[in-house]
């Protein structure tokens, strides 16, 4: 087994993370994320167990449009990569171990219960807020750029599209429908 290594200096780790984030923006035009990955897993599970309910629900149905699998997306693949990346890091640092990390003041059972409840609250809140810190910090948190991603956004009473995008987008009063087509000739 590899000798145990210390954690990386936090500033160096921050630089590494910043470069990973930059790579995501440069290559895929988006920031990093994780809570969305959990959402997609649940959506896929619901679809597998009760397809009818998934197709009828205003929440789930949008992930099954055009017969697409909810797992076939950037975020789901990214989360898979995270598991592998974390494992590699743990392996080279001698930190691989099945364990329950907790304060000595509480029992294992209590720790696991609070971990579970914490997960329920956190991801519920993250779905409401549309992203946990990894996403909200990037790109819109640090990034200060001129009008960004959504090619269509409501202004006054009608949607407008940035030049180069087809007018296949709008706000129907309750949600965005963005079927953008980028005109590469632009």
């Amino acid at each position: 087994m590899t000798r145990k290594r210390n954690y990386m200096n936090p500033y160096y780790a921050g630089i590494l993370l910043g470069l990973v984030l930059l790579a995501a923006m440069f290559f895929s035009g988006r920031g990093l994320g994780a809570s969305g990955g959990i959402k997609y897993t649940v959506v896929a599970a619901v679809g597998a167990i009760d397809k009818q309910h998934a197709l009828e629900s205003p929440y789930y149905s949008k992930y099954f449009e055009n017969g697409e699998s909810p797992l076939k997306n950037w975020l789901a693949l990214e989360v898979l990569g995270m598991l592998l990346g974390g494992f590699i890091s743990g392996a080279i640092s001698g930190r691989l171990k099945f364990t329950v990390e907790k304060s000595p003041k509480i029992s294992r059972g209590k720790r696991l219960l609070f971990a579970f409840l914490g997960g329920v609250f956190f991801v519920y809140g993250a779905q409401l807020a549309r992203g946990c810190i990894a996403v909200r910090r990037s790109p819109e948190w640090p990034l200060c750029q001129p009008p960004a991603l959504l090619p269509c956004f409501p202004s006054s009473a009608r949607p407008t599209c940035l030049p180069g995008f087809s007018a296949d987008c709008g706000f129907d009063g309750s949600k965005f429908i963005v079927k953008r087509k980028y005109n590469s000739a632009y």
Partner: protein
Amino acid sequence: MGPISVLTEIPEWVNLLAGFIIGIGFGFALEQAGFSSSRKLAGMFYGYDTTVLKVFFTAAIVALAGSQILGFFGLLNLNMVYVNPYYVGATLVGGVIMGAGFIMGGFCPGTGISALSIGKIDALFFLLGGMAGAFLFAESYPFVMKLAMGSYRGPVKLNEWLGVSPGVFTLLLILAAIGLFWLAEKAEKKFRRPEITGE
């Protein structure tokens, strides 16, 4: 010129593969930073470990400065990079709920995945709870939709809200980060708990 997947005709599988590789980097960086330890993460709230602040602020200023530089040299079209839409009520309420979840569970999804990858069973329970939370949200969506979709402000950016140029904002953020790093180092000295942070 980037973003590559938006502006060039690459096959979808290439973009998905890029996501996978970027995810490997993300997971690696998080675990190396120590985010696979819930006690280290919780230290941010109690002052004995400010790794979270140092790592995320450093990452933010690296990505911010980097994207501005890439944009300046025409290598990245910043107009094409995704910005989360801002819904005031949903963000505030969701944020409070997330905070409660974090201090209860000691993780957030990204760090939970990082911890799970090295064998932490409490992280597994956290993520299972997370799936339950996501399911709860999905099923309760018709009831919370009004809150979730209310007070829409569009993809708001901080520099626009502050009324400063991107360059000035970058400078302000770097200065803020330096100030916070200094405070963080002081806090760690004051509230030190080497049995948790000294790993």
